């Protein structure tokens, strides 16, 4: 167990310092712009870290259903979970490239699954665009 501040609290502290102190104090417009990009990247991480395992598990479950895959046991670590989602997405890409999703009911299921996955990614990256 790490001492507080937690990683999330630290991220927020750095972002707020960038937004409120560093950026406004920079005379160079280019550097100010880059400080604000950095702040926005930290804001993305603040949204990404809480519940990342839950989102990955939901995506994996949806992809397994779409690909008719039985998975005995869920991956035990976050790293294994990430790899499993990546592999399942690769398998989905293969099937789309073969033309399996060109038309018909499976296409509708693919579209529905992707809407869920992309919406979840966008809720982290830029929720105002949803």
């Amino acid at each position, binding site marked *: 167990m790490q001492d507080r501040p937690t990683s999330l609290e630290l991220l927020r502290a750095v972002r707020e310092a960038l937004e409120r102190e560093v950026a406004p104090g920079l005379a160079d417009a280019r550097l100010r712009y880059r400080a604000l*990009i950095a702040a926005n990247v930290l804001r993305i991480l603040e949204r990404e870290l809480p519940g990342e395992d839950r989102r990955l598990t939901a995506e994996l479950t949806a992809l397994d259903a779409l690909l008719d895959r039985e998975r005995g046991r869920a991956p035990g670590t976050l790293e294994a979970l990430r790899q499993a989602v990546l592999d399942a997405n690769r398998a989905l890409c293969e099937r789309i490239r073969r033309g399996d999703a060109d038309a018909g009911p499976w296409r509708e299921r693919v579209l529905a699954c992707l809407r869920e996955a*992309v919406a979840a990614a966008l809720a982290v990256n830029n929720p105002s665009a949803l």
Partner: protein
Amino acid sequence: MALIAGAEGVREALARFLEREVGAPVTVAACASVASGTMREAWAFDVVLPDGGQEHRLVYLEDRGGSLLPSRLLCDDEFRVLRAMHDAGLRVPRPYWRVGTEDPSGLRPGLVLARAEGETVARRVLRDPAFAAVRPRLLAELGEELARIHAAPIAGLERLPRARAHQPSVAAQLDELEGVLRAIGEPHPTLELALRWLRAGAPDCARAVVVHGDYRLGNVVVHPERGLAAVLDWELAHVGDPGEDVLWFCIRFWRALDAPGWQGLGPRERFLDTYARAGGRRFDADTARYWEVFANFRWAIVTLGQAWRHLSGREHDLELASIGRHCAEVEWEILRLLDHAA
């Protein structure tokens, strides 16, 4: 030749370059870095040339060596396009000189162009009170100017990338974009769906034109009184279907047009209508949707490619890295468009 660095180094190198070009000593004043994209560094400077003492307000666009897409034009070809467009009376910065590789002045390859007065940052054009007077007419000006670009003569631009014979104009570009996607190698099912759909439905190109390749609000100069002053960044120019530019301008990501919950420069219909009335093509709903999916797909690939410039270790850069996280927004729009498509 030692590498030049900083505004003072660029200023001195520019003086050396210009002296050789004009054959007489010149004084370069007020050289400063100005905002530009991720592709090149822009240096604004003023110079008095021995041609009558008039001060020239110029910009030196210094290549950073990156590339939005593999088919990006080299400086020489971009210079030719600019010259052709300038000669055709279009609103582009007057091209002065190109700087070649290993120039003895020490400058990196790039272009020296007239500096158009005004604003390039889209957010300011959309919101800053200074542009309130020109905002109401800007969308119509952008539609008309694009129609004029698409009416410009292609003769003399034989070196521009173009479609292969007996293929839809878009096929070569889809090959290129797919190549970028494969090279990066990460799974993007939404982009695979879009690619299948685009390959299957490529429309016939009624008339091939000079396509700007990146025509959007962030790539034009807007003057607070004169309105649209110049169209910049011709490095992705090619010969192709006018629908590419027209719907590229329209994609949601740029926030240039009105959308639910967003006030842009005006409704999409006004842009499409002024484009058509100025001699451009009128697109039916299906054709417009095709080019809108294509534009979003192309932009999605560019975002991945920009992030890859960072991830591959070639150019460590925060801005390039952060662009990778824009892809989901573009994919979201692609899914919306595909959902409404036949």
